[in-house]
């Protein structure tokens, strides 16, 4: 796929058919931990969109302009992690300083996702699939939105489930994982609509 259509395909497949959370099961710990309330999970989801988009772009630049010329491709794991961590930390500090409402809505979640495996996963997948700069950008933002939708759906379900009777042994993480599995099955319905590598 060439040009614009290729970018759009990557964007939508990252959201639906190749949803990073529901097909790769990455980023589970914050997905399970912070999906009790819709409002909270929206903040976290927004933070994930922002961080995934910016770090995929940033890591693309670091990889192709620093690591490749120096033959340091093998160090990509370490370098990506520290780039993500440093970047997120600084963004958090800036948001905290300049705007309290924005910090309360978004910034507070940043430390929770610095070491989220979905963030690193996006940076690594874009290399495996040999995306260009623009493709990486769309892949990052698409994956972020996909993660956002997944946690939002989960939070909605869990919020409605508060009053339901759940067998004692399944309360908490147990039932949440089962729901996540069913959601993953539902998302499988999208597969075949779009295909990326």
């Amino acid at each position, binding site marked *: 796929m060439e040009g614009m259509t290729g970018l759009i395909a990557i964007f939508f497949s990252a959201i639906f058919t190749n949803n990073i959370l529901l097909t790769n099961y990455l980023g589970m710990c914050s997905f399970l*931990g*912070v999906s*009790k*309330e819709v*409002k*909270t999970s929206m*903040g976290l989801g927004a933070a994930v969109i922002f961080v995934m988009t910016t770090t995929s772009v940033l890591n693309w630049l670091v990889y192709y302009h*620093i690591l490749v010329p*120096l*033959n*340091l491709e093998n*160090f990509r794991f*370490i*370098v990506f992690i*520290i*780039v993500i961590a*440093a970047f997120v*930390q*600084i963004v958090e*500090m*800036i948001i*905290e*300083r300049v705007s*309290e409402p924005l910090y*309360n*809505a978004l910034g*507070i*979640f940043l430390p*929770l996702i610095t070491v989220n495996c979905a963030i690193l996963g996006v940076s690594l997948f874009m290399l495996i699939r040999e995306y260009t700069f623009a493709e990486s950008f769309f892949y990052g933002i698409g994956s972020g939105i996909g993660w956002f939708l997944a946690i939002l759906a989960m939070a909605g379900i869990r919020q409605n489930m508060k009053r339901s009777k759940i067998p004692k042994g399944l309360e908490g993480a147990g039932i949440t994982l089962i729901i996540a599995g069913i959601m993953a099955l539902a998302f499988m319905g999208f597969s075949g609509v779009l295909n990326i590598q």
Partner: protein
Amino acid sequence: MFLGLVVSVGAMCGISTVLALIMVAAESTIGNYGDVKVSINDGEKEIDARGGKPLLTTLKEGKVFIPSACGGRGSCGLCKCKVKSGAGEVLPTELPWLSDEERKDHVRLSCQLKVKADMDVEIEPELLYVREFRTTVVGLDDLTHDIKQLTLKLEEPDTIDYKAGQFVQIETPEYELTDEPVYRAYSMSSVPSNKHEIEMEVRLVPDGICTTYVHNHLKVGDTMTVNGPYGDFKLSNTDKDMICIAGGSGMAPLKSILYNMREKDIKRKATYFFGAKSKRDLFLLDEMKQLEKDLHDFRFIPALSEPQDDDHWEGETGLITEVVDRHTDDLSNSEAYLCGSPLMIDACIVVLKDHGMPEENIFYDKFA
């Protein structure tokens, strides 16, 4: 090959250094909130710190330890404390852990809340004083055939502040009965004014991990780790008449409370019922007699439930509840301090209530 190595190492160091420098620069400019003061429990303790860090971390640096299981990631909800001033709005990461009541009560999750200005916080008072102490055993004396008095000298830190009646946990290291250190609570029988030594009464429980260790393995000169103080079993601030009831090693906190009353010259009327099986289970009789002379109005009434023939016992006999029942009239304006087995305490509470004592006037420490 060699050049490649140098380039790799150099480049990695370069990248890390650049990032680190950026971080340091950001930390000291954007992340700098100046010096702040955290005042705990209306100024009982104050911590001076650099602003910008989570409250939990700031408290930890000030040597105040709030329990937390997840290490500050906002996923366990344990590190709650009340923040009276200096905090902004409740953050969305705290919401899942706070009930409506707690929100109204200004309870916050201390790992999420950052200290950016002077703060007024309230935590459980006992958390303020809980420490771990390295101690040396300086005394291990038989009080009866199965109760030993254990005296520990504090080494690091070398002083302790506590209220008469509180307890500490002592650590039993691994030995033949246990594969991992276990902690058991023991009331201190010493007087709080002696800040360098604490004293406990340990009764040998068959197959008890900690008691067997203290009785059969511990020697004078050994090192022992304890943490504390804990507990709210202590003398109230009233001048009501006191009924004290204890059995066996339940003597410990009451001894501490009574000795403290003598030292502070507290003039409350007190009657102390002490239950034991036979004469060989009685101890500290001379000390109690001395207290009867020294205290304003104090009576010690030991009672034996199964006196032996050669005990030649002329004092009270019967279950401690029967003795209390015989010796008391209307208790509606008295307070009770109980320490002993759960069975004994539950039975005593029934008797005390029969005599008109309101339940809120009954204080107890149950040791199973």
